[in-house]
């Protein structure tokens, strides 16, 4: 008997904008000029927010902080694809999503300064708190997606995680559950190619992360994660499909962590400076600038104006953060459960 081929898979890669800012018009998503400029403004905001966080950390005003430097397109492109009613399950390195959706900057800094109250998002946003335990939040997104479908809400769920997270059991349990139950969920991997000191080629023997989805019965696609238009298009198509009952999709955004893992890390110990330098040339922000300039949507005056505005926004966020009074001791107890146990009530009285 001849051998049969039972299944074959093709992993697509989507890229729209090249490093010089040339765009593939056939793939260009429909975005009005004002939206293109807003994307740019959000990317500048994220970078400025990020740099300020590093400065605040050096001054001892923030604790350990994980920068987003280099991943602006992957984050902002994803955020633009979301509808306000969609649910978001972030890891800890996607504040670009928060900033785009309007999460208060003061609260983001407040959280990284070690104040849990920063995690209480505004009620109109469906953003789950940061998940510090890598990759363990993926099943939550599947659950929220199934709940939304049960309620017949026109909602899709997006969950964000890094390349390191793809090695966790919960990644696989969530992918499998989502495929088996056809959950309206989009898995978005920020493949920044490093999990602290472990490069992605040591994280897995697979040639791409995207291909892992096929093992669970749905499509995985790789997008150029430094191309905000490709990220936007890839994530948006996946979210639309989820909302239309088409089930889960995995979008791998191939990007690069240009900074240290966190402020407590020194990446020079484990990765060559030439590698970092080569990615500087693929800076997602530069690429969008070049594209916008070609469209007549960007010049130095506009850039200066954006930078000034963003600076003011970030300054105001820092000031607001520093005006927040420190938490009370009673705050330890308030949210452990809806009501304190008798012992907790007694412990609250002691001090």
């Amino acid at each position, binding site marked *: 008997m001849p051998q049969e081929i039972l299944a074959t898979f093709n992993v697509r890669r989507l890229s729209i904008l090249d490093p010089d800012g040339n765009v593939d018009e056939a793939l260009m998503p429909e975005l009005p000029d004002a939206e293109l400029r807003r994307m740019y403004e959000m990317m500048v905001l994220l970078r400025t927010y990020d740099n300020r966080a590093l400065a605040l950390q050096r001054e001892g005003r923030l604790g350990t902080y994980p920068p987003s430097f280099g991943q602006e397109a992957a984050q902002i492109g994803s955020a633009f694809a979301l509808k306000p009613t969609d*649910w978001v399950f972030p890891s800890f390195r996607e504040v670009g999503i928060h900033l785009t959706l309007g999460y208060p900057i003061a609260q983001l800094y407040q959280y990284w300064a070690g104040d849990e*109250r920063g*995690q209480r998002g505004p009620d109109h946003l469906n953003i789950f708190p940061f998940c510090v335990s890598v990759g363990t939040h993926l*099943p*939550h997104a*599947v659950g929220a997606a199934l709940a939304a479908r*049960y309620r017949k809400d026109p909602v899709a769920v997006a969950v964000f995680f890094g390349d390191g997270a793809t090695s966790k059991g919960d990644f696989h349990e969530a992918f499998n559950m989502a495929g088996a139950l056809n959950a309206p969920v989009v898995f978005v991997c920020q493949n920044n190619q490093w999990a602290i000191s472990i490069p992605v080629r040591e994280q897995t023997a697979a040639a791409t992360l995207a291909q892992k989805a096929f093992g669970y019965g749905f499509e995985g696609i790789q997008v150029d994660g430094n191309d905000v238009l490709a990220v936007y298009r890839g994530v948006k198509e996946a979210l639309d499909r989820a909302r239309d009952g088409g089930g889960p999709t995995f979008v791998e955004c191939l990007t690069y962590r240009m900074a240290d893992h966190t402020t407590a890390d020194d990446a020079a110990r484990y990765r060559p400076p030439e590698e970092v330098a080569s990615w500087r040339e693929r800076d997602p922000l530069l690429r969008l600038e070049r594209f916008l300039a070609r469209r007549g949507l960007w010049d130095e005056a506009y850039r200066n104006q954006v930078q000034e505005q963003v600076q003011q926004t970030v300054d105001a966020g820092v000031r607001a953060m520093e005006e927040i009074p420190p938490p009370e001791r009673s705050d330890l107890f308030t*949210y452990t459960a809806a009501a304190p146990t008798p012992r907790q009530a007694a412990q609250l009285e002691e001090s």
Partner: protein
Amino acid sequence: MPHLNMVQAINQALAQEMERDDRVVLLGEDIGKDGGVFRVTEGLWERFGAERVIDTPLSESGIVGTAIGMAAYGLRPVPEIQFLGFAYAALDQIFTHAARIRNRSRGRYSCPMVIRTPYGGGIKAPELHEESSEALFCHMPGIKVVVPSGPYHAKGLLLQALRDPDPVLFLEPTRLYRMIREEVPEGEYTIPLGKARVVREGKQVTVVSWGSMLERVLKAVGPEAEVIDLMTLSPFDAETVLASVRKTGRAVVVQEAPKTGGFGAEIVATIAEEAILYLRGPVLRVAAPDVTMPLPKLIDAYLPTMDHISNAVQEVLRY
């Protein structure tokens, strides 16, 4: 009043709450078409449909993690873990997320869900099917641990757990599933969480127990003993225990689990802190030895017996 066993009482509670509250959905391995390996969810898939009684892949962490997301979205999921020993694969979800999401989100999200799972020894099952590791969960703030000891209490406690705003681990003593039949009212009723009950009054010694051990305690002790069924381990009802110990001046705690670090230790410590001046002698623990749960051939050498219990009671009565 109908006489039901615990399987039937739990099934009735689930059905009634699903009827009353469309937020309640069940998920787990083999719980739908098959009605669960112990038939606890029998008939619910037919009655409420596959959207509310979800047959999942074999994926304990995935089941609990999915339930957490459902709860955050506003449902009241009831994940079933087929046996407590397999909840070890879901400990990360329970400890890292279910027990903490209210705190982490400062009250924006909560996790009202009931993790149901058969627990305890004596059912001639393979390895990891008979664990009694309740103490692990009692150490984690943010999750309640409830253990019924018979059909009547199983129904009332489960209905209350299903209405609790926070996660509850509901441990169903497997050995008792079909052993005890009791009158169980057909209508809804709830039994508060965090409250113990005095099963039998006595004057000379307090015997504290829960779950499947209670059945042995009641057979092993005489009228001198005041028997307390904790029903909820976390948070446990210290007041009822202390009031009894202040009256009797003696105490024995009976648990099925290994002795060291078991939940009995917490009760003994509480008595030592709050009622030591009322004691006439040592407080004793009856527990399994600190060994790995054996397979059925050695189960009788492992589980506390009626003799162990009555000997401990006689011992403290000497003081």
